[in-house]
């Protein structure tokens, strides 16, 4: 029983990480039709810079970590917004080129990070409490999972609030449904594009810092490997659906944990099978919009 609980909560914690990456991917694709392969680079860069600033504030302290998270958030948002303005906007409506440019950015940035911070991951120091465990009904849950889950819940809440309660949120929700029609109303959706990129980047940036907490290290390839899972989550959840991304994140991560533990480390295989199953039964994903 305690093993099941441990796997479940650990899975949800990992799912929280997936969600931070997948939420942006899903919104960006939903609104703009862009598969952003540079998303992992936002995460990696934010992870590195968050760590660099955080350890100067106080290595292994809460002040350092929280500053790092803030830095990660800002770095992710700014870099994502710049990416949209400089690389995506000039290729408006040319989806193949947009994808190619993000793939190029993804590859080039990893090489850049390796040049600056080296090819090997760097072990980092964390506040002591995060290294400990909490007893929940006999299961010893690593404390860092709580931080991941809490952050993802707050991010989900803020994005939902933004989408439901602001003028721009309304434009974005309408744009995800039918972008052409929003334009026909005389609304310039390009600013909404930049905002969606910035929001997605901010979430990924937070994810970058939290990924370093989860793995206990920062590395040039952290974003790339998480991006693959995030894409799977996004497709399973339904491209463009935030709720779908949230549900699928937890689902994928929990399946992965259980398969790794009970089926001899076949977590990745289990996820890919789940992806294939969803695509066969519901090609639009769990919550994806059905195109008529």
């Amino acid at each position, binding site marked *: 029983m305690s093993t099941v609980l441990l796997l479940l909560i650990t899975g949800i914690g990992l799912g929280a990480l997936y969600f931070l990456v997948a939420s942006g991917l899903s919104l960006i694709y939903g609104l703009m039709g862009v598969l952003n392969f540079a998303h992992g680079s936002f995460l990696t860069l934010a992870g590195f810079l968050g760590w660099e600033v955080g350890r100067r504030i106080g290595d292994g302290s809460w002040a350092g970590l929280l500053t790092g998270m803030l830095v990660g958030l800002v770095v992710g948002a700014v870099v994502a917004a710049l990416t949209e303005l400089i690389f995506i906007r000039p290729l408006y409506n040319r989806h193949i080129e947009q994808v190619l440019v993000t793939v190029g950015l993804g590859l080039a940035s990893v090489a850049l990070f390796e040049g600056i911070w080296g090819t090997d991951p760097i072990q980092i120091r964390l506040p002591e409490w995060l290294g400990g465990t909490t007893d929940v009904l006999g299961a010893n849950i690593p404390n860092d999972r709580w931080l991941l889950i809490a952050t993802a819940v707050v991010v989900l809440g803020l994005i939902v609030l933004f989408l439901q*309660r*602001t003028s*721009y949120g*309304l434009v974005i929700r309408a744009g995800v449904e039918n972008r052409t029609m929003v*334009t*026909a109303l*005389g609304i*310039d959706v390009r*600013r909404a594009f930049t*905002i969606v990129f910035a929001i997605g980047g901010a979430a990924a940036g937070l994810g970058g810092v939290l990924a370093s907490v989860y793995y206990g290290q920062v590395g040039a390839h952290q974003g790339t490997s998480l991006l693959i899972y995030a894409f799977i989550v996004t497709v399973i959840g339904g491209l463009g659906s935030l709720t779908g991304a949230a549900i699928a994140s937890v689902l994928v991560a929990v399946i992965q944990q259980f398969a790794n533990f009970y089926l001899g480390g076949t977590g990745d295989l289990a996820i890919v099978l789940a992806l294939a199953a969803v695509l066969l039964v519901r090609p639009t994903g769990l919550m994806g919009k059905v195109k008529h």
Partner: protein
Amino acid sequence: MFDRPALQLDAVGLQIGGARILHDVTLQVGTGEMVGVIGPNGAGKTTLFNIISGVMIPTSGTVRLAGNDVTGHKVHQRARVGLGRTFQTSSVFAGLTAGENVRLAAQSKLGGATSPWRFPREGDEAAGVARRCLEEVGLVHHIGTKAGVLSHGDKRKLEIAMLIATEPEVVLLDEPMAGVGSGDVAGLVEVIRRLHASGRTVLMVEHHMEVLLGLVDRVAVMHHGELLAIDTPKAVMANSQVQQAYLGETV
């Protein structure tokens, strides 16, 4: 013919490849006038609408809105100078509520979408406009209903409410009765009548002949990409050329 035509087409033509889609269409619609456009399928009615709204650019001639040459202007530029249109196929956001649909349209006019950090909801200007527009088309009781579950006739009314929210002076309605159940027609006719009565200039394509003839001030008849006649409903029906065009095309 008019002191200040709201809409003026001069010798408008559209040629795609060797095909003549529209030829030498000249017409004026006076401010506050309601004009119906009829003609057999393929006569060029929708092409005419696309040229007026800026979806297509004519290969010859000029399009003027309130005296301004807008021939080469894009759709959203024309929307800014007071042109609004609905489409043959229903174009509401199914996932948003009726209120949100109209609110979105109102935002485009108010520029509310330019302040992302404001938390606008109940009681702000766009919400007021949305409520007023829904009242005008008689849909205010559906303000919180998802547009996707509205009846076809109500969706059409919602589109008109969205149109009103953008405060257009010239309104193009592309087959507003298409696919609307017979029970909804009377209500929709009333909405269009009010749209006109409030001083807006209306140009509409409609196949429902009896509905159209009872509504409009004048009728424009299209045939093979040309404007065959434009006159009062009575005069047009008595026009032998028009009768021939229609009888000749009847299956």
